[in-house]
């Protein structure tokens, strides 16, 4: 059976159906029973399909859920990985940004492209380079400092007497610079040298200053002469001071030396006197009372001698001091290097030398005298010693008389005398023996004495030789100095002549160069003057031109303004004229409009001729108005036009009539057709007024419709549209409406022209009549 087959089919298709489904069971029973009908099976089928569809729906739902979830998860994961994608999704899907924020957290900040590190490296490098260059400059400067010293001399030699304003030190500095630069590393950048050379310059300059003595600078002539005069004066002053000093010291030295010499000589005489006196006293040939006077005189002489010696010593010391002063002064004067003082210095030196020599001589004399005196004193001492010894012996022998040795002769006893004589004899023997011994030893003594004397002599000789040598040396030196002085003078003179020659040459050269320079400078100055003059001229010309231009401009402006004002006035006049004309035109148009109103219900207006004639008169010069005025149709001019109201009223008749003859045209125009069309018009029910469509379709060209449209239009006051529709009528309707159409056309035309005219008049009036 059909049902069974279907059931079987069902089982085959859906083996996994839910057995608990009751309707399926019922269906199965029914199917098995075979009493099944198509309808319940259908129901069953529907149920079963519903059940199956439930599971399939579940499957579908599950699958869709899975897909959606997978899509969401994938989107979120990918958004986590790719922020751009996340941004895109957030932009396109409305609430995805909240979802993303929930799932992933806030979006990462936008990446800023790492800008290149600013090019600080390059300036750093450059600065370091400059620093390195500076450093390299320092040792160069230092080397330059050390160089100037040895380079001075060649630099001084190298410098020719050129008339450049360079100083000697600058030239030497330059030479030092060049030499040091040749020796230095060549990697030093060029602009640095010019910057560094002035400091190096000054350093070298300072060094040069240190090494040089008073610098020979070249200065302008007056300054030079002034300087020279100053120098001369200074020299003179110094010289005068020097000579004065020298003379003073010389004088004082001479005085003291003379004093010393005198003192020495006095000492000498005193010594000599003393020695003589001593000798005399030693001789003891004089009577005893003279002896005391002798001894007194001797003492006096001795004291005198000592005094003289002391005086001499003092004087000698003073003289020596003075001599030293003088020598010091002479040395200082020698150091002052004033050449003119040289002879004086020489003379002073000679004087000094002579004084020293004299002093020495006198001193030697005094010394010899002193040695003699010493010998004599020794002798006298010996004698005194002998005497004392004798006295002592005598005193030993005769002790009681020793005090009275002076008054001996009367008071002595014979024993005393005998003992005395015996002692005397003994003493004489002894003395003889001693004498013999002495004679024997004389030779030896003499030899020894000679030796001694020789030694002393040698010493003295040496001293004398030394002093003589010194003196001779001094003499030689003085001679040499004198000779040197003479040679110097000669040389000075020669040098002066040479210098004079050189100066002459220099002045010649200077003159030439100055001439050339003068020429050059003059030319330069002339050029500059010319250029300046040109500049000034052009400037002046430009200024005058500018003035002229501005003046012309002002004049032109004023003229233009004047012209403008005149034109404005004229145009104002014209405008007023126009305004008047416009007024007139407007008034005439208004009159025309007014005449239109004179139309009655069934009769037309007055003929518009008059008003139009007035218009034509009024706007004689206005082409537009003239054209318009002529465009008014003749009929309206002569006969007047109907008003719209009358036309409207007439239209109803037209309409009625047109409806009645709607069927009549060229082909159908029998009476029967007339009757039919009348019947049609009576039996046709339609709306009287139908709003016309925007576009006319061919089916709208039906008479009745057209009339309905026209009726609608005319009821709304649109005569033109109504005329247009009426114009579409054909056949008899057209002929019937012909007159009406003509009238309508006329009215419309005239109205149009009049409206144009009034609009024109209004426009003209608006245009011309502006508030004064």
């Amino acid at each position, binding site marked *: 059976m059909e049902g069974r087959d279907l059931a079987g089919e069902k089982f085959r298709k859906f083996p996994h159906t839910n057995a608990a489904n009751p309707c399926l069971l019922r269906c199965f029973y029914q199917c098995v029973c075979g009493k099944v009908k198509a309808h319940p099976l259908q129901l069953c089928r529907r149920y079963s399909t519903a059940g199956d569809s439930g599971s399939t729906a579940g499957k579908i739902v599950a699958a869709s859920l899975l897909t959606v979830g997978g899509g969401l998860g994938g989107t979120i994961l990918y958004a986590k990985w790719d922020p751009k994608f996340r941004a895109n999704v957030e932009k396109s899907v409305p609430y995805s940004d909240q979802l993303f924020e929930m799932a992933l957290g806030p979006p990462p900040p936008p990446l800023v492209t790492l800008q290149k590190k600013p090019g600080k490296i390059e300036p750093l490098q450059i600065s370091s380079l400059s620093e390195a260059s500076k450093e390299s400059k320092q040792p160069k400067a230092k080397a330059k400092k050390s160089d100037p010293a040895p380079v001075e001399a060649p630099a001084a030699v190298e410098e020719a007497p050129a008339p450049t304003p360079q100083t000697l030190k600058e030239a030497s500095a330059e030479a030092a610079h060049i030499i040091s630069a040749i020796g230095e590393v060549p990697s030093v950048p060029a602009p640095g040298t010019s910057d560094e050379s002035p400091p190096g310059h000054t350093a070298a300059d300072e060094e040069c200053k240190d090494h040089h003595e008073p610098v020979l600078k070249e200065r302008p002539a007056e300054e030079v002469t002034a300087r020279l005069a100053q120098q001369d004066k200074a020299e003179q002053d110094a010289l005068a001071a020097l000579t004065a000093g020298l003379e003073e010291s010389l004088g004082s030295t001479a005085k003291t030396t003379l004093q010393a010499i005198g003192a020495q000589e006095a000492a000498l005489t005193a010594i000599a006197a003393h020695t003589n006196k001593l000798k005399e006293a030693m001789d003891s040939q004089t009577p005893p009372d003279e002896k005391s006077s002798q001894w007194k005189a001797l003492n006096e002489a001795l004291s005198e001698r000592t005094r003289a010696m002391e005086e001499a010593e003092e004087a000698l010391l003073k003289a020596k001091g003075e001599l030293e002063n003088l020598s010091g002064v002479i040395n200082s004067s020698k150091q002052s290097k004033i050449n003119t003082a040289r002879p004086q210095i020489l003379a002073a030196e000679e004087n000094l030398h002579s004084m020293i020599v004299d002093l020495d001589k006198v001193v030697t004399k005094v010394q010899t005298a002193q040695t003699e005196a010493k010998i004599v004193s020794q002798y006298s001492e010996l004698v005194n010693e002998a005497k004392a010894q004798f006295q002592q012996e005598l005193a030993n022998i005769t002790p009681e008389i020793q005090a009275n040795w002076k008054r001996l002769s009367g008071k002595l006893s014979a024993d005393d005398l005998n003992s005395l004589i015996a002692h005397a004899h003994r003493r004489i023997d002894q003395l003889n023996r001693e004498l013999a011994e002495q004679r024997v030893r004389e030779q030896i003594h003499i030899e020894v004495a000679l030796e001694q004397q020789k030694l002393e002599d040698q010493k003295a000789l040496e001293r004398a030789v030394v002093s003589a040598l010194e003196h001779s040396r001094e003499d030689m030196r003085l001679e040499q100095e004198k000779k040197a002085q003479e040679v110097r003078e000669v040389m000075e003179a020669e040098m002066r002549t040479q210098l004079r020659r050189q100066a002459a040459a220099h002045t010649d050269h200077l003159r030439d160069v100055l001439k050339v320079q003068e020429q050059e400078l003059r030319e330069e100055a002339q050029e500059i003057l010319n250029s300046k003059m040109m500049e000034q001229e052009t400037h002046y010309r430009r200024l005058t031109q500018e003035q002229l231009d501005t003046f012309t401009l002002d004049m032109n402006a004023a003229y233009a303004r004047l012209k403008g004002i005149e034109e404005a006035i004229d145009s104002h006049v014209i405008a007023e004229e126009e305004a008047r004309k416009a007024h007139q035109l407007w008034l005439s148009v208004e009159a025309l409009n007014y005449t239109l109103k004179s139309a009655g219900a069934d009769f037309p207006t007055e003929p518009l001729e008059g008003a139009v004639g007035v218009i034509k008169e009024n706007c004689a010069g206005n082409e537009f108005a003239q054209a318009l005025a002529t465009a008014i149709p003749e009929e309206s001019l002569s006969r007047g036009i109907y008003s719209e109201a009358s036309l409207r009223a*007439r239209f109803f008749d037209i309409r009625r009539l047109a409806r009645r003859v709607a069927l009549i045209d*060229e082909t159908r*125009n*029998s*009476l029967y057709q*007339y009757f039919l069309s009348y019947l049609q018009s009576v039996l046709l029910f339609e709306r009287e007024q139908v709003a016309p469509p925007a576009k006319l379709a061919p089916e709208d060209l039906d008479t009745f419709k057209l009339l309905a449209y026209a009726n609608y239009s005319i009821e709304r006051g649109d005569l033109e549209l109504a005329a247009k529709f009426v114009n579409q009528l054909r056949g008899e309707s057209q002929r*019937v409406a012909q*007159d*009406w159409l003509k009238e309508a056309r006329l009215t419309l035309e005239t109205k149009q022209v009049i409206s144009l005219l009034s609009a024109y008049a209004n426009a003209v009036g608006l245009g011309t009549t502006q508030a004064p």
Partner: protein
Amino acid sequence: MSEKEFGQKWDRCLADCAVKFGTGLGLGIVFSVVFFKRRTWPIVFGTGLGLGMAYSNCQNDLRSRYVLHSKVAKEQ
């Protein structure tokens, strides 16, 4: 006015119809009385003639606009 023309034509038509009808009737009557022994057929005929003529006139009058006139151009 063109609309009045139609009315005028119709007026004429009707007037003509009336005239012709009356004339026909009269002539028919006359003819029927005079010549045709008071039979009705000449009256009817006459009336009919009259009406017909009126109809035709009316029609022609109303048609007059649509009729083309031609002239034979004289040979020169």
